[in-house]
């Protein structure tokens, strides 16, 4: 057994910021990073010079990385991180920033996920995503992860009896949640019929199983509790986190992620159990991934998510609030910002800074990260358990 990780002591997370998403932008990623940083400073009442740590996640900054952005934005930091880890980048940024502040390497770390989306940038970015994808996926025509998720959705359906209606239930419920979130890309309700009859993309996936790529940014600040209180900033605590990369490489096709390896430690360190969690933000790039995460993170056994989905409503006011601002499926996927979306929404929920409808009395939130389909499966699994100030071990 690995030694238990130390807790995060008096380090907290605050100032959830969303730069509203747009479908396409002629601006570069730098634009969205700048707006996110400005939003964080405004929110916290800090001057640029008071940020001494920067953690940046983006796919579309090239040829720049985080270092180029320090000069571009005119900030001087003593701690810097660049994490182009897609859907895992938010949780990974959080756990690194927490330790940096805890150890005194930085005092205030700005964590930002930002990407732009030009009309043709998705297609153009495909060829540079990974060597394995360029050699062994793109020549087969799928272009992007749709085909990989079609394989695993169809395999999941076959293995565990999931039906299209089960995936629909998640998508429809999340759309309900998104109707109360002003920044969601989708602003109209989604009916079961619309979901089922949407145009096919890669069987069994249809249009509403797939996220809409867009441009935007998400961010938050990591600092000591004392600093947050001095600034008068509402904050949330981080009880426990995990990340795991390339887990279960021997599985012929992905039916589980690294969460199931680290789940016990995750809850153990947090001192809570799955049933204590009040809201969950899965990484919902495709609805099948929400089901896999619900299983791997202990809300039901492997293969039982379809049944679990049939039992719950998933709306903010119902049983098992899930993806309370609509998730990526309704809010949109702004590149690496998608890896921050669930965290930022969780911080809002736990600090009463809601944009979406609040989950009444929420004390504990679980935000999940998942990403990097470099060939046939997502390689990064991550998760964080957050608590309302004053709650938890």
């Amino acid at each position: 057994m690995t030694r238990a990780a130390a807790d995060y002591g008096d380090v907290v997370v605050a100032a959830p910021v969303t730069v509203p998403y747009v479908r396409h932008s002629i601006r570069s990623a730098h634009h969205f990073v700048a707006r996110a940083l400005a939003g964080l400073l405004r929110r916290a009442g800090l001057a640029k010079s008071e940020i001494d740590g920067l953690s940046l996640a983006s796919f579309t900054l090239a040829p720049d990385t985080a270092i180029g952005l320090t000069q571009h934005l005119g900030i001087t930091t003593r701690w810097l991180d660049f994490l182009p880890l897609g859907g895992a980048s938010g949780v990974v940024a959080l756990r690194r920033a927490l330790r940096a502040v805890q150890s005194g390497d930085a005092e205030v770390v700005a964590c930002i996920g930002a990407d732009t989306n030009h009309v043709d940038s998705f297609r153009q970015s495909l060829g540079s995503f990974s060597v394995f994808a360029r050699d062994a996926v793109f020549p087969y025509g799928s272009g992007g992860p749709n085909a990989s998720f079609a394989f695993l959705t169809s395999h999941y359906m076959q293995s565990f009896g999931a039906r299209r209606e089960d995936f629909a239930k998640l998508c429809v419920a999340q759309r309900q949640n998104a109707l109360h979130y002003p920044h969601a890309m989708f602003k109209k309700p989604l009916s079961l019929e619309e979901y089922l009859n949407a145009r096919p993309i890669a069987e069994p996936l249809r249009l509403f199983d797939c996220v809409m790529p867009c441009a935007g940014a998400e961010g938050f600040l990591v600092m000591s509790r004392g600093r947050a209180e001095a600034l008068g900033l509402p904050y949330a605590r981080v009880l426990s986190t995990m990340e795991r990369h390339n887990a279960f490489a021997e599985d012929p096709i992905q039916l589980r992620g690294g969460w199931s390896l680290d789940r016990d430690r995750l809850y153990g360190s947090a001192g809570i159990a799955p049933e204590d969690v009040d809201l969950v933000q899965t990484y919902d790039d495709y609805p099948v991934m929400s089901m896999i995460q619900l299983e791997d993170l202990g809300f039901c056994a492997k293969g039982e998510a379809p049944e679990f989905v049939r039992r719950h409503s998933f709306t903010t006011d119902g049983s098992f609030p899930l993806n309370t601002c609509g998730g990526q499926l309704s809010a949109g996927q702004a590149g690496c910002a998608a890896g921050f979306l669930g965290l930022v929404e969780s911080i809002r929920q736990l600090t009463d800074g809601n944009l979406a409808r609040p989950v009444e009395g929420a004390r504990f939130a679980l935000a999940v990260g998942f990403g990097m389909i470099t060939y046939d499966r997502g390689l990064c699994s991550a998760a964080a358990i957050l608590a309302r100030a004053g709650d938890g071990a």
Partner: protein
Amino acid sequence: MIPPLPRPKRKNPVLRTRAPLLPPGPRSRAALGLTAAAALGRFELQECAACGAVQYPPREACHRCLGVELPWRRQSGEGELIAETTIHHSHDTFFRERLPWRLGMVRLDAGPTVVAHLHGGCGTAPARVLVGARLDKAGQGVLVAFPPEEVPNMADDRQLREMTCDPKYRKVLITDGKTAVGQALVRAVCAAGAELVWVGHAEPWKKLPGLEQIDAMPGVSLVPLDLTDSRAVREIAGEIGGKVDILINNAEVHRTQGIASRSGIEVARAEMDVNYFGLLRLAQEFAPAMRARAADGQSSATAWVNLLSVFALSSFPGQGTYSASKAAALSLSQTLRAEMRPAGIRVIDVFPGPLDDEWNQTLPPPKVSPEALARAIVAALRDGVEDVYPGEVAAEWFARWRENPKALERELASQS
């Protein structure tokens, strides 16, 4: 069930011919090992020299032991289709024109999971399949999952036809009908379902054995074609160049001499004039028209075949000037391939060992019969390969050349 390929309708001449598009072509250098094997009709993957683990996708280091010696080894391709999808949407222009497109994820018995084009004859997952490698339109190696047993109309599969150059319902030009090889080729492509066959005839005033029978076959017509005459080549290209789907250049002059055995360069010049300049003349006149018709529907222009010789790889001093002319033609053929690739037209080089004909009278068997050579060429078209070594001698010399070209040079010198 694969529907049989329909006979193509007459083309509406008013319609615009589509510009050829290619599937994504960029590959890492490691991945080109798959292409190199597929060009020979083989399915090979990297196997770790230290621990034996089979690797996919291609890589620089063993995923199990970090060994960096990863030689390419032939694979049986047996595996299980564990999931499949039919894509209805693609960001890629080539595939957008060809949707829907069926893909499978296959767990090879050898270990790795691969993404493959899924042949229409494969059952729904889970099912046993046989994975093979093919060259796609971009000329790069890709994997195709086939049904484990032959199914009716196997070669007519819509997706597979994008990777092969099957002569069925296609129009073929064979540049020389006077030789036994030329006549065997005519019979073989007709048997393979070619729609029309033009057969070149350098001296139409001469009655040569076998030509009359060829001319009498349905769909076959003789055309005057002398590869040493630039104007004649241009004229015939003007007449039929815009219709040729497959060009098989089998015309050659073959004499048996080295350097010391004869004075003067007249014979060597005659060899070069057909074997090298003849190819150059043909390529200049026919290649542009074929490129323009590379995406012309079901029976588009698809392949160019050059009959070379295994002596093109390394000189056989007893036939030294002939070897040199074939080496020149091989080099030119590589240029032609580079120029045809943007259109997706395959250039196939055929490297037979000695043919069983009058010019190899003194060489010992085994020698390649004209019929076997013709069969090998039709098979190469059907499989869409780039390099063919028909006959045992060719296969052995190719293996020797791959292993140690200097050793082969010495071996060939001592045989002359």
